[in-house]
């Protein structure tokens, strides 16, 4: 294959650019100094401080709860949407599935803020979960839809010929076949939910903390190496989820990011 030294050099610089910042954060999370400057010595103090930080633990708990609820409901609704888009000729649903992904995030944040205040819903956990479900549905629907597009339709026809009702054919043939896509979609929704900052920022109100909001506050007010520690742990969690998702449905992450 064609490969030139210049191309390799440029590409390697690209990879360095992608990874250097993350490596820096991980390294400083073990540095025995309040300043993110010289390397002083190895310590686990920042992790210890992190696990003694009440606010941080509350924020992490909230993020986990929101992530679980949002990923569950968006997976159910997103799978339905993905299946409906595959099976039927629809006009409005595909538009509503793609639009939240295509427009700048801040717009969804502010319009949901106005909406929740208009219907008199107190901003907090419930409004955050409702908002997260709304932006996760599209991602799940696209992943499930892609999985369905790769499915052998004759299997469903065979089941129907053998006397299965449409519901039975779906439950016994289609669903098991698309299950890896559904689980990958659920993991993606979970990751998007616990990572979300912009939409949460507008729909959280003043009393509810999530992990990204807490990180934002720390970064804006006082940067301590605790931020490095919580960042490192979050990266680790995301990495684990990605490995699981890619094992279940190879290529799904790449296809998704390319389309999103």
């Amino acid at each position, binding site marked *: 294959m*064609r490969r030139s030294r210049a191309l390799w050099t440029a590409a390697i610089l*690209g990879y360095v*650019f*992608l990874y250097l*910042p993350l490596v820096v954060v991980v390294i400083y999370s073990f540095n025995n100094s309040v300043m993110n400057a010289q390397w002083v010595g190895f310590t686990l103090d920042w992790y210890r401080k992190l696990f003694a930080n009440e606010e941080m633990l509350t924020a992490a708990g909230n993020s986990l709860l929101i992530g679980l609820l949002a990923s569950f409901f968006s997976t159910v609704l997103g799978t339905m949407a993905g299946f409906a888009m595959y099976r039927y000729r629809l006009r409005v649903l595909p538009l509503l599935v793609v639009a939240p992904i295509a427009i700048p995030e801040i*717009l969804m944040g502010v319009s949901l803020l106005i*909406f929740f*205040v*208009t219907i008199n819903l107190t901003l907090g956990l419930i409004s955050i979960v409702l908002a997260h479900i709304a932006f996760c549905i599209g991602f799940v629907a696209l992943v499930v839809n892609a999985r369905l597009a790769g499915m052998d339709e004759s299997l469903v026809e065979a089941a129907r010929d053998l006397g299965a009702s449409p519901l039975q054919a779906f439950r016994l043939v289609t669903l098991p076949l698309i299950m890896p896509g559904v689980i990958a979609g659920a993991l993606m929704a979970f990751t998007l939910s616990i990572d979300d900052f912009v939409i949460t920022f507008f729909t959280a109100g003043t009393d509810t903390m999530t992990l990204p909001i807490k990180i*934002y506050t720390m970064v804006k007010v006082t940067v301590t190496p605790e931020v490095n520690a919580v960042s490192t742990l979050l990266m680790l969690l995301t990495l684990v989820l990605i490995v699981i998702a890619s094992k279940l449905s190879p290529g799904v992450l790449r296809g998704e990011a390319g389309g999103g």
Partner: protein
Amino acid sequence: MKSGRLSKWLISGPPLVYLLVLFAIPTLIMVVASFRFPGEFGGLAPLTFEDETGRHFDVTWENYARFFSDWLYTQLFVKSLAYAALTTVLCLVIAYPLGLLLARSPKGRRELLVLLVILPFWSNFLIRVYAWMIILGPNSVFVAALNAALGALSLGPVTLLYTPFAVVVGLVYVHLPFMVLPLYANLEKHDPTLLDAAQDLGANAWQRFWRVTFPLSLPGVFAGSALVFIPAFGIFAIPDILGGTGGIMIGNVIKQQFLDTRDWPFGSVLSMVLTVMAVGLAGLAAWFARRERL
């Protein structure tokens, strides 16, 4: 046929209703809000009012008039456009070699190289921005090394954090994968024999790139540009964290109108202008991409 229609509604109905209620209706409410008056204590004034002659809608063009009469906001849009455009160009320059490398590497290794591009993209957005706060910050060992080098050339020490430079670095870093992936998807499909033919006809590496590879990759270039430009245009967290006062973009002003000043009608006007511009530019990119494909 009847049961077919029923199951169609049973399956597509719930997600449709959910997205109508939590996406379409909020968007419409925002459109209406851009014509309303701000409330006395922030938020929105009541939509209707009553007098001797009955109930009336309390709506106005004033918010739009204010937008078009105060140059400050147009300037901010132009500045945000410029930052987003610069980000798009820099992403293209950095992403192209990566995309080419991915497309031309052997199949077995390709999976891993692609995964390595996506991986940072999946870590938390704020963490990726925060990392640049460390790298560009006043205590940074990188900035110290840079300033030592500049000092040797008897050039003044530079401050990098809280400048427009830091904003653009953050924007490029966060959006880079959106450029690499569509480029790679396009470059992967190129027929390598075209390059062989060009070489046989005497084209050097430079000519082969500019006259064969690059023109063929234009749909990927447009797709990637749209995916970088649109989110970069409306962003507020990156200038908020890395930009200081000089680096703010239109997203910061929208955030300010909704959460600090609490002038929601005017915030809605700014959001509307942002949406129209973003959707318009996306449409333009799609149109270009389609035209290139023909």
